[in-house]
Each structure stands twice: as structure tokens, then as C-alpha cells.
């Protein structure tokens, strides 16, 4: 019976843990010990894993016959340990059939803990054999093999050397095993490897390579900063950036010696506690020469080793700190998987080793060097927001490695946020909170961040989902600051200045490699910001040539190159955010909008939103500015900006929305779109209008769809509703100051500008306009006699006793009505038409 024999090997088998190289942390040491006093006490627990087994599966002969593993000293030489283990297993008497009486066997415990080795082993067997993905079809599954059995077969086919195991799977199958694995990785992983090798040899007894388990994707990952002594000897997972790789170090695993006297070759001597014991005497009976053995290098077995330094990623560094670093130890296949500059996520065992002052010194310097014994390394490329873009429709194959993992709690938090009725306003407020007012511009930028849905028809035609925005405005209206802010927030944001950008610098250029003479394609800013936002400052100062390159990018979203024998079309699915000064630096109210912007209409029509940010001499605005700056200087700025989402939440929100929300147009919304578009077209054909007005084109309806989709996304809603469409129309109108545009001349009445006016103020103005309209409807006949403005004012004052109405405001309101063609406004008299 196994119960009698199994403990035996352990008393002589394990190596002593008192090795200066290994960790000195006493209580976490694994040293197999027989704890006979705890016999049978573990029974209740040991049955737990088997409860998972469906159908009841009698442990196979192999599974029970092999010995409990010899937990190793150090994971740093896994191969050696694994090689030695089976040999000790063979000494162990194979147990008879019927592993059912496991509970009668003497449990072997991981030293210093109450973890039974047998329990762990059977739990791992269960896991490897029976784990199935949840999302597989439940019905057919019984006849199928488990996920990891399939993986093992695949490994055998490709003669791989490792098996990747998702820690989430382990957790899902047996959370107890997961806890043990994280807490005592050295021991549990050793058992894991042994179980795996057993399975492998069961499938293919001739398979020679040693297959190792690599755990990845732990439930929790720590930051480098939070690593502390309590993490030593535990499995940790952390993110960082590789900053330095050592050269590859060949590490000896097995040494063969030759006698210089008789030429006898010794048996392979394996590494023991980090060193090779050189035999002093020739083993050959006839020779027995002393000190004659010499190492035969080319018959020794070496393994690759590499030391890599990992540094904290910039976003984890607190203010006023410098990044922390940690060393990684990589073995075998992990060597050279990352190069300096890569962002990686590492799973490994945190270890410490004491620093010896010198061999002569008995005192150990009371210091430790820490490092991570690397088990698994995964490259991530997450710089800012989610770079992997969900706007792309045709990617059927989702990448396995997701950049940002949204956990349940986070998602709920975001959803909670989205349910707030004022989410749109709150997000607007949170965007560049220190830039004062410009609410509608911020709304537009918000739409750009969220983006619309890209569409690719089977016929090959595609519609972009990216929203392009142009800001045109007077100097000193914080356009550049907005640009900088968006650049910092957006995924793969690139910031260029028009003056310093050439056409090739923006798109792509071909250069000759000085060494090889080959022509290589180098990406420009637009290609680099593929799936991001490309911010172009001083757009007006860009050369004509460079600007014309943008035509293709902004509509087809590709960059085509045909030069130096390279014909290529590169993806540039980027949103463009440009800003420009009006011609002559300041906006000239006497010129029309088009003349002021002075950009070719072909380019203009590619912008979804064109914002005119005008600085006008308004005492109200000036007072706001003064107040704002005074409060900046004298009040606690933290209090001044409350109720604002922090950047992290904002980014998470945007990423989540872009990734998971793909809104569709509801019927109601579609109807509204059609109606609004027709209206817009008609206004373009306003009697007497010249070509000085930006009229609606089919491009605009696409813009409107994108904007409404983005607006729905902001609410995390799967459906575009009518309100979204109305808001999209409003944004478009506000952007162009259309309410203030005189359609007959194309100029803007500076007093009517609504950008930079707060929402409440705008409401007030709108109310005034409608009140005025009502009065005119009441008092004036169509084509009847005119009415003086002052009379109108009196009427208004009579009706709305609460608020004060100024003559100038009324004048503006009437001008708005005149713009609609409702009245004719001449001098001081109002006439209805």
C-alpha cells in the first residue's frame, strides 16, 4: 500500500534548504516533512477537489504510483529538479490499483504549512484533465477533451517546451488550488510540472522534452512599488518596462569530467545547490588517480539565462518620485523574449537572496537582493487609452491579449456613472477643466474622443467613424491648450505644429538605410497616430503641399505611397484635430466666414465640426475671465473645481465606451436626421444667399450620424435616439456660429455669437427669442404696420416681470428672428413678413 512506502523517499530525498543562495525566509521554505501526527485530519478537505470530477474518475495507475514530488530548493534550475524527480519516483513502490483510499495514505505536507501534497496533486490532475472553458457549448462537452488536455496535445505535436496555464482558469476551477499556488508557488509549481510530465508520458511515452507549466494572468497584479517583504516567495504579477537586458549567460546544468590520466569520462554530474562538485578521484577502479579530473566543456549541458531589468511604467510613479526597478531572471525559452523599451506584464516568483560580504567573512551582510524568477512574460502595448480600436468593424478575430482589463467593479462604476442624467454635462466639465467656458467646443471634442461607428460595406466601401474637428479662432482663446489636453488624453495622440510639418513628415516617407542601402518606409505623424487623434497646431501656416496630403487621410483614412519602387497604402485611421488662426490673425467681422478661414472648401468639408472661437469685446465675458483668474490666484483651486471626473476615470470611461458600445440608429432618430438634413439644405438655398455660406453636403449627413453615434456612446447607450440627433444638429450649428450668420452676406454678427456663453445664458437668450416671437405673433400682422423696438421692450417687460431685459439683448433677439426670415428688422422698426 502506498501508505507504507510513500513517506520513505522524503526523509532522504530533499536537499537542505540552508543554502545561502536560496531564500533565507524560514517559514516559507518548502521542505517536505512527514507529519504523522496529522494523519487523516485532512480527509474532509481532500475530498473537495474530487467533487469537481464529473464523471467520477478513478485515479489512474500513473497518477497514484508516482511519488510526491521533492519540492525543490530553487526554481532557478527547474530542469535539474525535474530530471531528478522521476528518478526518485522510480524508487518508490508503485501503489496498487484503487487510489480511492487516498485518505488512508499518510498525507505529506508542504513544510511549515497544512497543505497536503497529495491533495494538491490530485487537484492539479483534476484541473488539467477536466477544465473546460465556460463559454464552450455545454451539451457536446462531455465527449470533448478539456481545454488543457487539448493544449497538451498541441504542445506534443509542436514539440513545445511549455504549457501556458491561465490563472483565471485555475481560480475558476478550484479557488483553493489557486490560493495555494500563489502562496506557495515553488512547491505547487513543482507538483504541477510533475503532474504534467506524467500526463505527457501517458500520451506519448517517448516524448523526450521536459514540458513546464507557465502560469499567467493572475487575478491580482501588484505594482513594483508595493512589493514588500511579505511578498517574498510568492507568485506575483506586475507590469513594467524593460530597460536593460544582460547578455545571455550559459548556465551549467550537467557537467562531465574526464580523467587526465586514463581518459575516463565521469557520469554527468548535476548542479547541486548552485555548484558542481568536482570529483577528486578518478572513478575508474583501475586508475583512481587523485586530482586528475578536468571539465569537458563541450560535453556539458548548459541552459540559457538572462537577467533583465524591469522599470515601473510612468503612470505608476507618484509625484516627486523616481521609477523603481526590479531584476528579472529569465530562463531557457524566455530569454530574449523582450527587448529594452518593451512594456511587459510579468508573472513570476518574488525572491530574495542574501548578499555575502565575502567568502572569508562569516558574517552575512544583513542585506538582500531581490529579483523575480520569471515564469511568464507578456508584451503589452498600452500607452494611453485603449489603443486597440473597437471602431473597426471587420476584426472578427479579437485579440486574446486585451490591453485594459475592465473588472466587474470598474464596469459597474462606469455604468453607474452613465446612468446619471447629467453625464453629458459632467464629462464636458471634466474635459480640460481649467480652460474656462468654451462648453460647446468641449462637447465637440468629447464627441471626437468617443467617436462614431466605422462601417465597412461588403461592397468594399467604407465609412469612417473618426470625427475631424477644426478650431478657427482669435489668438489667445486657448486653442492650443485644448489641443495639448486632447493630445495627452487620446490614444496614440500625436502633436505636430503646422509650421514645422512637411507633407512627408505627416504621411510617410521612403528613406535609404545607410548601411544596407535598402529603401525603408518610415511612418509620419498621421500613420503613427493610426487609431488615435492627430493634433495639428497652426494649421493655417502649413504649406499648401502638406495640407493637400490630408485630403486622402481625412476621408479614405489611408496614406498611399508610390515612390522609390515602393507602392504602398498605409492605414491612417486617425481623427484630425487642427487649429488655425483666421486670415490676418484676427477674425475680421466684415469678411464672410469662408473668407476668414481661407482654407480650400475641399478640405473644409472633410471636417465634421468647424468651430469659430471668437474673442469679442463683451464686458460679461471679460468679467468671467477676471473672476476666473482672481480665483485662480487667491482661492484654493481644489475647491474651485469640484464635481469633476479625474483623468483616470475619464479615460477609463472613454475606453470602455469605445470598446463595448456600438450604437445603432433608431427609426425615430433616422427620421429626425432626414428631416433635419432637408431643412439644412433648404436653408442653404435661402433666397438671396450667395456662395458665401457653408451649405450642407452629403458629407454633413455622415458627420451628423457620427456625431449622434458618439453622443449615444457618451450615454453608454446602444441606440441612437432622437435627442442625440437633435444635439448633433445643435453642435453643428453652434460650431459654425450659424445662428449668428447673416445668410445674405455670409458675415457673422459678433453680438450674436453664442460660443463661450454658458448654458444658462444661452437658455435665457433662447427664451428671450421665443418670447419676442410670441409677442410679434400677437401684435403684428403679416405684412402689417411695423412696430418700434422700444414698444416691443415694454411689452416684454410687461409679460416677464421677473427678469430684466436690456434693449441690446432684445435687438439681438430680433436680429435672430430676422435671420430666420420671420421679421424684417430695419433701423428701429420691426416688421413681420
Amino acid at each position: 500500500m502506498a501508505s507504507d512506502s510513500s513517506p520513505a523517499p522524503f526523509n532522504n530525498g530533499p536537499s537542505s534548504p540552508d543554502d545561502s543562495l536560496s531564500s533565507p525566509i524560514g517559514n516559507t521554505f518548502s521542505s517536505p516533512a512527514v507529519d504523522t501526527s496529522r494523519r487523516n485530519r485532512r480527509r474532509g478537505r481532500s475530498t473537495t477537489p474530487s467533487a469537481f470530477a464529473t464523471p467520477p474518475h478513478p485515479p489512474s495507475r500513473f497518477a497514484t504510483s508516482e511519488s510526491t514530488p521533492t519540492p525543490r530548493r530553487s526554481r532557478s534550475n527547474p530542469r535539474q529538479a525535474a530530471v531528478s524527480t522521476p528518478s526518485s519516483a522510480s524508487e518508490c513502490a508503485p501503489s496498487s490499483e484503487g487510489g480511492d483510499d487516498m485518505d488512508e495514505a499518510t498525507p505529506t505536507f508542504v513544510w511549515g504549512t497544512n497543505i497536503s501534497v497529495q491533495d494538491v496533486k490530485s487537484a492539479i490532475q483534476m484541473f488539467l484533465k477536466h477544465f473546460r472553458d465556460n463559454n464552450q457549448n455545454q451539451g457536446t462537452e462531455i465527449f470533448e477533451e478539456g481545454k488543457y488536455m487539448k493544449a497538451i496535445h498541441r504542445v506534443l505535436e509542436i514539440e513545445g517546451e511549455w504549457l501556458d496555464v491561465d490563472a483565471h482558469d485555475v481560480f475558476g476551477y478550484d479557488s483553493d488550488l489557486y490560493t495555494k499556488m500563489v502562496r506557495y508557488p515553488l512547491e505547487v509549481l513543482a507538483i504541477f510540472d510533475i503532474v504534467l510530465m506524467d500526463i505527457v508520458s501517458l500520451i506519448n511515452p517517448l516524448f523526450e522534452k521536459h514540458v513546464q507549466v507557465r502560469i499567467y494572468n493572475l487575478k491580482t497584479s501588484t505594482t513594483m512599488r508595493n512589493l514588500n517583504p511579505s511578498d517574498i516567495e510568492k507568485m506575483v504579477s506586475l507590469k513594467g518596462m524593460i530597460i536593460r537586458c544582460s547578455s545571455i549567460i550559459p548556465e551549467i546544468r550537467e557537467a562531465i569530467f574526464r580523467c587526465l590520466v586514463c581518459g575516463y569520462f565521469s557520469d554527468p554530474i548535476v548542479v547541486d545547490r548552485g555548484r558542481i562538485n568536482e570529483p577528486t578521484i578518478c572513478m575508474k577502479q583501475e586508475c583512481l588517480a587523485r586530482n586528475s579530473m578536468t571539465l569537458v566543456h563541450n560535453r556539458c549541458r548548459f541552459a540559457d539565462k538572462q537577467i533583465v531589468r524591469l522599470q515601473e511604467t510612468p503612470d505608476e510613479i507618484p509625484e516627486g518620485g523616481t521609477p523603481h526597478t526590479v531584476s528579472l531572471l529569465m530562463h531557457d525559452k524566455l530569454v530574449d523574449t523582450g527587448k529594452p523599451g518593451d512594456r511587459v506584464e510579468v508573472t513570476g516568483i518574488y525572491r530574495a537572496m542574501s548578499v555575502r560580504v565575502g567568502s572569508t567573512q562569516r558574517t552575512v551582510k544583513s542585506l538582500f537582493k531581490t529579483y523575480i524568477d520569471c515564469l511568464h512574460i507578456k508584451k503589452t502595448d498600452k500607452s494611453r487609452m485603449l489603443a486597440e480600436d473597437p471602431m473597426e468593424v471587420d476584426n472578427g478575430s479579437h485579440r486574446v491579449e486585451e490591453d485594459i482589463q475592465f473588472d466587474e467593479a470598474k464596469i459597474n462604476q462606469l455604468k453607474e456613472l452613465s446612468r446619471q442624467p447629467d453625464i453629458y454635462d459632467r464629462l464636458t466639465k471634466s474635459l480640460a477643466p481649467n480652460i474656462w467656458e468654451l462648453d460647446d467646443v468641449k462637447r465637440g471634442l468629447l464627441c471626437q474622443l468617443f467617436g462614431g461607428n466605422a462601417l465597412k460595406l461588403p461592397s468594399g466601401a467604407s465609412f469612417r467613424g473618426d470625427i475631424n474637428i477644426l478650431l478657427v479662432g482669435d489668438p489667445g482663446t486657448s486653442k492650443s491648450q485644448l489641443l495639448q489636453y486632447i493630445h495627452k488624453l487620446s490614444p496614440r495622440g500625436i502633436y505636430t505644429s503646422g509650421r514645422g510639418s512637411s507633407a512627408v513628415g505627416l504621411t510617410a516617407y521612403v528613406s535609404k538605410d545607410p548601411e544596407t542601402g535598402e529603401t525603408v518606409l518610415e511612418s509620419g505623424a498621421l500613420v503613427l497616430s493610426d487609431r488615435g487623434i492627430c493634433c495639428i497646431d497652426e494649421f493655417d501656416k502649413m504649406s499648401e503641399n502638406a495640407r493637400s496630403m490630408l485630403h486622402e487621410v481625412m476621408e479614405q483614412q489611408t496614406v498611399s505611397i508610390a515612390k522609390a519602387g515602393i507602392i504602398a497604402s498605409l492605414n491612417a485611421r486617425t481623427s484630425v484635430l487642427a487649429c488655425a488662426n483666421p486670415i490676418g490673425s484676427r477674425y475680421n467681422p466684415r469678411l464672410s466666414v469662408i473668407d476668414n478661414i481661407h482654407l480650400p472648401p475641399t478640405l473644409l468639408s472633410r471636417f465634421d465640426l468647424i468651430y469659430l472661437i471668437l474673442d469679442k469685446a463683451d464686458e460679461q465675458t471679460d468679467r468671467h475671465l477676471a473672476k476666473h483668474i482672481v480665483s485662480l490666484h487667491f482661492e484654493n483651486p481644489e475647491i474651485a473645481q469640484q464635481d469633476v471626473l479625474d483623468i483616470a476615470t475619464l479615460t477609463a470611461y472613454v475606453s470602455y465606451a469605445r470598446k463595448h458600445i456600438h450604437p445603432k440608429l433608431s427609426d425615430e432618430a433616422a427620421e429626425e436626421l432626414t428631416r433635419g438634413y432637408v431643412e439644412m439644405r433648404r436653408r442653404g438655398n435661402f433666397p438671396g444667399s450667395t456662395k458665401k455660406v457653408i451649405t450642407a453636403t452629403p458629407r454633413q449627413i455622415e458627420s451628423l450620424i457620427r456625431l449622434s453615434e458618439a453622443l449615444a456612446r457618451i450615454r453608454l447607450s446602444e441606440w441612437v435616439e432622437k435627442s442625440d440627433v437633435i444635439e448633433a444638429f445643435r453642435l453643428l450649428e453652434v460650431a459654425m456660429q450659424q445662428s449668428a450668420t447673416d445668410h445674405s452676406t455670409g458675415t457673422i454678427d459678433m453680438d450674436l455669437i453664442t460660443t463661450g456663453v454658458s448654458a444658462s445664458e444661452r437658455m435665457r437668450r433662447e427664451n428671450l427669442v421665443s418670447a419676442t416671437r410670441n409677442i410679434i405673433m400677437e401684435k403684428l400682422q403679416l405684412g402689417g404696420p411695423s412696430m418700434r423696438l422700444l414698444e416691443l421692450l415694454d411689452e416684454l417687460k410687461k409679460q416677464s416681470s421677473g427678469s430684466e431685459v436690456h434693449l441690446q439683448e432684445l435687438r439681438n433677439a430680433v436680429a435672430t428672428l430676422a435671420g430666420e426670415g420671420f421679421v424684417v428688422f430695419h433701423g428701429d422698426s420691426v416688421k413681420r413678413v
Partner: protein
Amino acid sequence: MVGPPYDCLANPLGAVRLTFEKAIASGSHPSSFDGKDWGAIDLFRHFLFDQSQLSQVPILSPATLRWVQPNTLVRFRGMIQDMLGNEFYVGAYKDGSVWRTNKFMDFSKFPMDSSPDMRVWERRLLYCVPVPGISSWAESASEVAIDRRMNWTSQQRDKRGRMDFEAMDAEDTPVPADNFEDSPTAKRMREDGHPSPSSQSQDYKTEAACSSTNVELEIYHDSSPCLVKIYDSPESELKLNDVFEFVGVLTFDSEIPVETGDRDDFCNDYSDDLLVHLPPHKVPRLHCLIHRKLAAHDFLHKSPSVEQTPHLVKEARESLLRHLTDVLGNDGVAAHYMLLHLLSRVHSRVDHVAVGKLSLNLTCLSKESFSVFGIQLSLAIKNLLPFSTCIPLTLEYLSRSSLAPKKDYQTNRLIPGVLQLAEGSHLIIDETLLETGTLNSVGVDNARLLKNLLEFQKVEYDFTYYKMEMPADVQLLILSEGKSNILPADVILPFQPSSVGTSGVVTTEAVEAWRWYLAAFRLLPHSIESEMQKVVENDLVAARQADRSIGSQDFSRWLTMGRLISTSFGETSLSMEHWQMVMELERQRRERLLPYRN
């Protein structure tokens, strides 16, 4: 309180041990400490502050390092230049049946076996250097205390120590040495030798000789770094570039040689940083017991305990203003602006805006007049402020120097740049030397760095794979011929001297009063009454209505100036009178600017 049975100064570790044993005896288990303090810190805090023995503790400097014994209590004043991460050490262990601790020491005194009872704790490593650009008076102030205790140990030791130090000087400053190897001024500087901190007059001469061209040497000369090990203090307390005073146990020149023989390659690769690059016999280690942040007034010889009577404040202000007017060749307006400039600091940050900075650009200075006024001015500033530096903005300097700190991954260290400055440093940028020419990419980068510092008070540190912005608080004074376009300052003032600048006769008391005045008043809080706020707002609106070119930057400048003017009078809220002074000053400045408008 009964007198302690140990000498905190000479045997601090004894005191630590005693408290540890006491804590153990009182029943606490070492594992419950988890590296936290068990009462030792309180003991030292009581000793140093309640019994005010702080001045008895020698300050670590190249001079004192020669005679200070290891394992005694010392203090070190310096800036945190780099953070070297955490270090795990055996905190507590059992020697037989007795618990021992290793806290505050490098080596355990008792044999240690790897027993299961060993407790591993962690401590933080900070690499500290003397504050860059520290003025000689501030430095010598730190050493006042020692003179009393000058008990020179044997001459022999002293000699050896000095040799050590010279060797160290040559080796420990590879960066600036490389940069300056072939510049003639650097050689001259080297021949001058290190200014001895004791003789003030000679110091002055040396400083005069070193005009603005060799700042880097000034920063790094006598660089005596110190590796400070911090125990139990939250991470947020100590930040990069902060100036601190650390009191702790010194370990230095440990006789144990670093052996490399017996270690396998595994060890070697891990010990790449500390032992090799900062060998313990060159860089002293300080196991910090108590640390406190230093402000400018901590560097004064004696902090005048005079209460701030309005009369005294006014006197100090007026005499300082007179002094500045003298230095600036009777240009009263410039002196006023200079005073405000010297009092400015970044008091809050709202996103990218650093509120409270007031950088000054004195224009109309040519190469010739710089030699008259510029040097006078930089000397005067050096004499007033504890930390000040000067950058000559030549094409060559821009293209060759490394202004931003850069991470060297080979040694895993942050290589200091000229712009790694402590909070509240003063920086003069001399643009008069700039000539036309082409900048290389380094130069463009450096110009951008300076501009960022000027606009946002931030410096980008170069971490090779990414840049990291570090907030800074530096007063910037730009001297240029015309308005500096590379470096847009907050205040641009054409400099109009009417006589040759003289520093006049300045008494020591006066200088000390000014230093105290600047140090203390800079930190005054400030507020605004709601009525005054109304007035200010109205004025701003009116100004903008009258002149559309006035923007938020001008508003900001006025408000900063208003704050600084009331600060200069020792008041904490803006008054009408001071606000009108701002307007008057600005009016005078605008008048001067008029001829330069195109």
C-alpha cells in the same frame, strides 16, 4: 526624565539597542514591529529637539568627514538627487535566544544564522547631494556648529582622509569633467582650487573670477554625496529635489573590502549598482533616524528671533530696495521688479498653470554692460539667496551641455542635469552672449527645456524610453539685449541704469537681515477680501475693455505682483494701496516698453 544611560551622540546604536531590548522585555514580539519604530525615534527626537541638542550633531561635509567617527550621530543637509529604490534587510533575528536588531546599521554585530525567526524589513535608499548652487554663506552656516567641537584626531588620519577626498573629487564627477575638459575656463577654475569655506573674502574673489561661464563646476565641485537610508516614513514625505536635513548614524569607510572573487556571476549581475558605483569607502552611508525638510531660513546663521514688527519689516524692505537700486545702477523700477521677483514662488498649480511665478527679463543689456551689471547682480543675488545658479546661454553651451537629468541604465542612476534644482533656487540666464548660428538637436531640446521651465515650471527628465515631467519652483532671471523670444518671461523690463552699479558698503548685519527678510516673507500666506476682489475684477475688466490685447497672462501677472507687493510689506491680504502700486509699476514699465514696440 532621568538622564539617559547612553550617549546619543557617540553611540546612537547603543541607544537603539537599548530601546529595542526594552520593547522586547515589555512583551512585544519583533514580528509585530514589521519594521516599524519601537520607540527609538521618540528617544532621539526628544534628545535632539526637546533638549535642543541638534546643534551638537556634526554636519557631514568633506571637511568633517575626516574626523567624524563611524557609528556616531551626524547630520547631512542636502537635496534628494536620486532614489535608489528599496532595500530588504534582516531587521530582527535571534542570536541564540536573544532577539537582536539590525535596524540603523549595515552589518550585524552578531553572527546570524538563517533561522526561521529571521524577520525581513525594508528601508528606502536615497542618494543625496549638497544642494546645487548653494551659496557659500549658507554652506558655512551649516558648519558653524562644528568649530566648537573641532577635536582633530591624529594628523595621520586627516592626511589620508584628504587624499581620499581628492581622489574622490576627481572620480566622482565624470559628467561635468567630460563636458568641460577642454574649455579653458574650466581649467582656470580647477587651478583656482576649491574655495575654502572658512575665509569669506577669498571666496568672494573666486566667485568674481568665475563669471557665469562655469556654473557646472560650481554645482559639482566638492560634490560630497551621501547615501541616506530611510526607515519607516511614508513615501510621499520625501520627494525628489527636496532639501532635507537627515540626522542619523554614519557608516563610512568600512574596512571590509568588496570581494568579487567568490561570487558567481549571478550575484555579480545583481550587485551592479550600489557596491560598485557607490563604494562604501567613498560615499558615506547615513542611517536616518530623523529627517526634516529645510526651508531657506534654516540656512541662516541665526534666525533673528525679532518678532516681525511692521517697523522692522519696513526698514528691511527699504534698505534692501536701496541696495538693489545701487546694484542696478539707480534704476528704481528695475529694483522694484527685482524685489518682487526675488520674493516669488509657485504657490499652487492648477493643471498646467503654475500660479505665483514671476520670471523677469531685463532687456537692453549688451555684452559690455553685462560685465558691469550682470556680475554685480549675480553676486548680489548669490549673497541674498541660499541657492542660485547662472547659465550662459551661448550656442556652444546649448548644444553641448546636458540641462535635463538623464537616467543611465548602465549604472541605474539618475545623472544630474543643470536644471535639477532644489525648490526655490534662483537661476540667471545670460542671453547677452547668444550669437547667430545653428543649433543641433541637443540645443533645440535644451532651449525647449528652458522654455518649459519658464512657462510651466516643469522640467522633463529623460528616461530614454519616455520623459517624465517633474514640477520645479525656480526663480528665473533673464538678461538679454532685446526681448528674449526663446525664453518668454512674465515681466519684460528694459533696463535703464543711470550710473555704474556699485554694491556700496554692506554691513554683515544688513545682509543677514535681508536674507532673513527674503526667506521668511516668501512663505507668507496670502488672501484677498471680497471687496478688494470686486475692485480688482472691475479694474481688470476695464483694462481689457480699453485694450483688447490684454489677456489672461497680463491679469495673472498683475495679480501675482499684487500678492508679492503686499508680501513685501509683510501683509497677508491685498490692500487698495498695494494694488495701485502694481498699476503704477506697470504703467512705468509700459512707458519704457513703448519705444520698443514696432
